[in-house]
């Protein structure tokens, strides 16, 4: 892939981009030799000759993509087709809050102050794929919620790819700034609509100021030819509460790099995930929570159900700095393998330098509890439904904290579909 030819020298954040492209050129794509990429190989993806920018714009009819929206609810929508903003499918706003485009934020003077303070500040300058995005991203969502504000409705960010190119690489870039005591709910989804190869290398920066509340939901249920490398960097200040839910139900290869930095006290960071995979799908959850200051909490709860020849990775890193006394850090990763060919590699990684902390971690890999199966079957629930019911129950802890009812219902439906049953009730 030749990225160099596409560098836009006139771009307002040109210096940032130049540094980023330099870093990427030095490091290139991560290989399996690196510890962090031991179980996820990008080799086969690198062999594909991806187009970096689509040659021509494509359009979509709302009726054809309606089902990918949480359309039951009123929501702001920022929609991209092959990486290009679709004003037709979107609903943005500047009414008290800014819910609009990265491209305008990067070019219009009125946003310069915010961009100068936040753009590419928490995102890694070392990680090569993040640098790749920094260098080449053209578009994404820009969300700015001023002090004490809350948008009237949740925000949906949708990326569609139409197969306009034989193989397309997308580099969406989101910036979310939530000021003091402000609140926002965001749902993000990447959706390929054809069998053509798509590789999305996304970067999202989230800044939660003092007492801000952010709920971010990632829906990953993409086509079998769509791969996603999702890099999320979150900077939290005093008393802020940020929850990221990741629902991974499909796609060819998905890598989630989710990084929390607690730059303040009494912070609450939550990472939850439900992964249900089949076929040859692969999902790799890499989480990092960096406890920098005292009196903060982090909660991680990832559940995985792996069937067919699917593979999963969970790597949860928790760093507790010497200064970060009274930290409470919890991490849980439970997995069920429902096929002999499926596999999961799970690894907690704790680096604790403070002495007055509470850290717990647990990972389990197992089959369904046979005693519970017998209990359900003895009540007349057939084996298949009993299995599904137990898997539902297994995933339920993660759903209980989803605060958008319509989204919860949607996720429930997706889970039911994934498990191939209809239980006739919602959890």
């Amino acid at each position, binding site marked *: 892939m030749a990225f160099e030819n596409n560098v836009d020298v006139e771009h307002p954040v040109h210096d940032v981009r130049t540094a980023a492209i330099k870093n990427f050129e030095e490091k290139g794509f991560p290989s399996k030799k690196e510890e962090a990429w031991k179980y996820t190989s990008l080799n086969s993806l690198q062999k594909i000759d991806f187009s970096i920018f689509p040659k021509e714009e494509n359009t979509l009819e709302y009726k054809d993509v309606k089902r990918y929206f949480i359309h039951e609810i009123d929501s702001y929508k920022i929609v991209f087709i092959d990486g290009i903003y679709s004003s037709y499918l979107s609903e943005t706003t500047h009414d008290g809050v800014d819910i609009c485009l990265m491209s305008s934020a990067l070019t219009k003077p009125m946003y310069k102050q915010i961009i100068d303070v936040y753009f590419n500040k928490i995102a890694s300058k070392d990680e090569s794929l993040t640098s790749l995005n920094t260098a080449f991203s053209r578009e994404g969502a820009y969300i700015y919620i001023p002090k004490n504000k809350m948008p009237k409705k949740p925000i949906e960010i949708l990326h569609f790819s139409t197969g306009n190119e034989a193989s397309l690489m997308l580099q969406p870039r989101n910036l979310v700034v939530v000021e003091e005591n402000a609140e926002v709910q965001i749902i993000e989804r990447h959706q390929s609509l054809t069998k053509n190869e798509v590789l999305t290398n996304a970067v999202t920066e989230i800044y939660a100021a003092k007492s801000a509340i952010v709920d971010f939901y990632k829906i990953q249920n993409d086509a079998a030819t769509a791969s996603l490398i999702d890099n999320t960097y979150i900077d939290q200040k005093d008393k802020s509460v940020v929850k990221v839910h990741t629902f991974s139900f499909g796609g060819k290869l998905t890598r989630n790099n989710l990084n929390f930095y607690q730059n303040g006290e009494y912070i609450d960071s939550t990472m939850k995930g439900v992964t249900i995979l089949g076929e040859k799908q692969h999902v790799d959850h890499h989480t990092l929570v960096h406890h920098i200051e005292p009196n903060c909490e982090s909660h991680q709860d990832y559940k995985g159900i792996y069937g067919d020849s699917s593979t999963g990775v969970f790597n949860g890193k928790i760093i507790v700095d010497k200064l970060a006394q009274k930290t409470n850090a919890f991490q849980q990763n439970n997995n069920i393998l429902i096929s002999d060919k499926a596999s999961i590699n799970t690894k907690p990684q704790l680096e604790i330098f403070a002495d007055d902390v509470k850290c717990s971690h647990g990972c389990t890999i197992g089959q369904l509890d046979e005693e*519970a199966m*017998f*209990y*359900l079957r*003895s*009540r*007349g629930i057939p084996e298949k439904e009993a299995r599904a019911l137990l898997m539902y129950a*297994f995933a339920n*802890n993660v759903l209980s904290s989803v605060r958008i009812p319509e989204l919860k219902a949607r996720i429930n439906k997706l889970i039911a579909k994934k498990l191939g049953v209809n*239980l006739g009730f919602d959890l």
Partner: protein
Amino acid sequence: MLKIKNLHASVDGKEILRGINLEVKAGEVHAIMGPNGSGKSTLASVIAGKEEFEVTEGSIELYGEDLEDISPEERAHKGVFLSFQYPVEIPGVSVTNFMKTAINESRKAKGLEDMPAKEMLKLIREKSELLEIDRKFLSRSLNEGFSGGEKKRNEIFQMAMLEPKVAILDETDSGLDIDALRIVANGVNKLKSKDNAVILITHYQRLLEYIVPDFVHVLHNGKIVKSGGKELALELEDKGYDWLKQEATV
């Protein structure tokens, strides 16, 4: 109704039931007593169809049909119910949703449509009142964080909902205080009819003061060593099991 003939069952190659013969007719209440490890809970699980146990000899018949190759769920559909000694906790599934699923699956097996929601709610209300179960309790996750007494009461609630032909209550009295025992026993008595039967598995005579058995059987070493009327339970309470063990070895 239920006919157990020369039943032998083992787990991991170890024989636990060594030739049980028992006939239970409609309208009867049987109590099965015996010391720890005599095979009481195994008998209950084998009747309910737990696959961990292997039936090596003999048979269990329900209405003349051999249950050998019948799955636990099909046995439930045919009217077998087991109240578990240790009900399993299932976080994430409410009592109500669990019962809805169980009832509708049974109906499906019989070729019936799902029970209308209104009817279901009425049934749940009726049966929960019978067992003095609080409304809030029904929306809690199945058995999760329930006290011993709540778990047992919930088992009998499920029995009331499913209306089985043969209900096996495995140590339903253990872990119950006297008030809970009274409620549970009262529930069972109200569910009893001339068309169904109850098998009580218990250590103690206490439960039998509330649910009066027609027959009492003593299980020892995987066999029924003595059968009698309700007065046998009193005798056991008095003398313990040792005299029976001796009698059995003679």
